[in-house]
């Protein structure tokens, strides 16, 4: 299977881990922070040790389909975090640590750690854990609401005029109220 690409193909659910990580890397920091914090407080707890936390620069290549080759257009700073989380084991496999992964734009250790904790929580199925109903385990909920450009746009579209839909609802409420009063 070719590598999943979140920005070039529509997100299909359930999503593989590669897609989930792409979505988390683009996710709103505050949203990830709260979800990660909720796992620390017991909603799908997966206590983490920081195995790796580093900051570095990487080259950015842009693939240009019209030209048929990639061009290096600059470099960006990234922060990467790998966590070592509590262990799993079974009758057949001895106990072993599990891991979460975070890779984010810029020098933002807080977001990288948060992403690693959320990634770990989302891996419950693959690691044979139970779904406890915790928000951080719910991949569809997390992935559908993590993008703050989408969230901001949709929230702020409320500023656009809505008088046509409002008028239709106003007519309906008036009708229901008139009938309720006539019946009372």
């Amino acid at each position, binding site marked *: 299977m070719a590598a999943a690409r979140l920005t070039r193909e529509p997100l299909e659910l359930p999503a593989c881990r590669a897609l989930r990580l792409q979505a988390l890397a683009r996710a709103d920091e505050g949203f990830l922070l709260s979800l990660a914090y909720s796992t620390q407080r017991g909603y799908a707890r997966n206590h983490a040790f920081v195995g790796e936390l580093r900051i570095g620069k990487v080259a950015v290549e842009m693939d240009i389909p019209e030209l048929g080759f990639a061009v290096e257009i600059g470099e960006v700073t990234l922060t990467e975090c790998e966590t070592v989380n509590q262990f799993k084991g079974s009758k057949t496999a001895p106990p072993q640590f599990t891991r979460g992964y975070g890779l984010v734009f810029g020098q933002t250790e807080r977001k990288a750690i948060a992403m690693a904790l959320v990634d770990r929580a989302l891996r419950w199925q693959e690691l044979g854990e139970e779904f406890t109903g915790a928000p951080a385990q719910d991949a569809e909920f997390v992935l559908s609401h993590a993008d703050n450009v989408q969230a901001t*746009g949709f929230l702020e579209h409320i500023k*656009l005029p809505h008088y046509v839909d409002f008028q239709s609802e106003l007519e309906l409420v008036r009708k229901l109220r008139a009938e309720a009063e006539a019946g009372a």
Partner: protein
Amino acid sequence: MTDAAYNFAYLDEQTKRMIRRAILKALAIPGYQVPFASREMPMPYGWGTGGVQLSAAVLLPEDRFKVIDQGADDTTNAVSIRKFFERTAGVATTTRTADATVIQTRHRIPETPLAEGQILVYQVPIPEPLRFLEPRETETRRMHALGDYGLMHVKLYEDIARHGHVATAYAYPVMVEGRYVMDPSPIPKFDNPKLSGCPAIQLFGAGREQRIHALPPYAEVVSLDFEDHPFEASKPDHPCALCGATESYLDEVITDDRGSRMFVCSDTDYCTSRRDAALEAAQ
């Protein structure tokens, strides 16, 4: 004049091809929501990014483009989108429904009947008619696949039991060609009958939700109802205060701080044309 820095209609050709493939699939399966790789556009999500991508994919240099928001050509969203394509595609624009070849709309169907050869592009916030009954996409896709619409019928029934009427006044769900339940976007239910048997191509684009659905010309579209509670397209029970129309959808405009109000056509082109015609006849 086209801004030379942009490819025609802003999007690159590969992206337009991808969107056209999704449009063809959507036309082949009326009412089915086709996932597409929605691009980030230079405008916020929720402000018509889906509609703009559809318009970009279907526009040709010889097209005449019209944009309305709430029925009006002079609302901020409509003005911005019209300017966007004037700049990036250099297409001619118009406010006349009959003169337009492509019409992008937010939440209204024009009053003037559409004709063959026209394309109506809807901006769609939430394309999934079952979303507020079942928030999970994985579930709703399964329900569509199985034609399992019991949940929707129960919702409509409960509305009638509780209120005496279906408590939905806009984005009223429809059945397309007897197969898929579809959200017609938040048009007032007054507009629902215009969806069916329409000679124009109707395309629905949801950018944030990455979905396209469509109605080919003359598709059969039925608003969901019950035999003993038939669907009723409603509007304010007044004539338009400006043009006197009795068959058009009306906005209620508050005119002072003592509760005075007037009802006027929400379709500005329709209202203006009628007033111009009346003026001409009077001369």
